[in-house]
């Protein structure tokens, strides 16, 4: 079980801020494929992966990051702080 978090317009498109996901996906990319296959709103949120950033256990990483032993994955658009 992994906590999956969504922020900004990713959260709005998927329609929830976080959920617990039962998955055996080996990587972030595989998890996105699983989610996108579930429902149209996930497919819509993940349609353009160049617009998606990912953090694994609160560290920025990329789509190839492994999920073994991971507790938390977050998806969001490019950050706009400052």
């Amino acid at each position, binding site marked *: 079980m992994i906590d999956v*978090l969504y*922020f*900004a*317009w990713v959260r709005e498109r998927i329609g929830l801020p976080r959920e617990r996901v039962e998955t055996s996906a080996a990587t972030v990319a595989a998890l996105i494929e699983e989610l996108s296959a579930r429902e149209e709103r996930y497919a819509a949120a993940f349609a353009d992966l160049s617009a998606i950033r990912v*953090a694994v256990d*609160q*560290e*920025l990483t990329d789509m190839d990051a492994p999920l073994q032993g991971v507790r938390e994955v*977050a998806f*969001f*658009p*490019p*950050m*706009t*702080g*400052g």
Partner: protein
Amino acid sequence: MDIRVQQAAFALGQELERFAAGRPDTGAVVSFTGQVRDEGGTLASMEIEHYPGMTEKAISAIAAEAVARWSLTDCLVIHRYGRLAPGERIMMVATAAPHRGDAFAAAEFLMDYLKSRAPFWKKETGADGVSWVASKEEDEAALTRWDRTP
């Protein structure tokens, strides 16, 4: 090193006054303050979302990197989240160093990284409705200038 992520407003003058005071090894103090522009009167409000837990970690890592790269005597980051009106202050950074070059470089480095590597997202409510602020290519490009600099 003082990192704060908060909903409440901060007192810019008091913060800088306190940050700069009582440190006789500091010759240079640089501050940056970000404010909500009213975009010619069209902006009604800005909402800042963040990722509690990761935000503090990400800012701390950026600040630690600045301290490692430049000769700093101290640095401060305050970043707000939640709903802000035009003219309100969003955030501030301050850097203290023996010499001005280090203080300026570290402050710009902090801003460039906070802009694109700390988990904040801005949503604007204006004349055209509600929209998420898009990241700018120039903000991503700004990071590359720190690749070479010691």
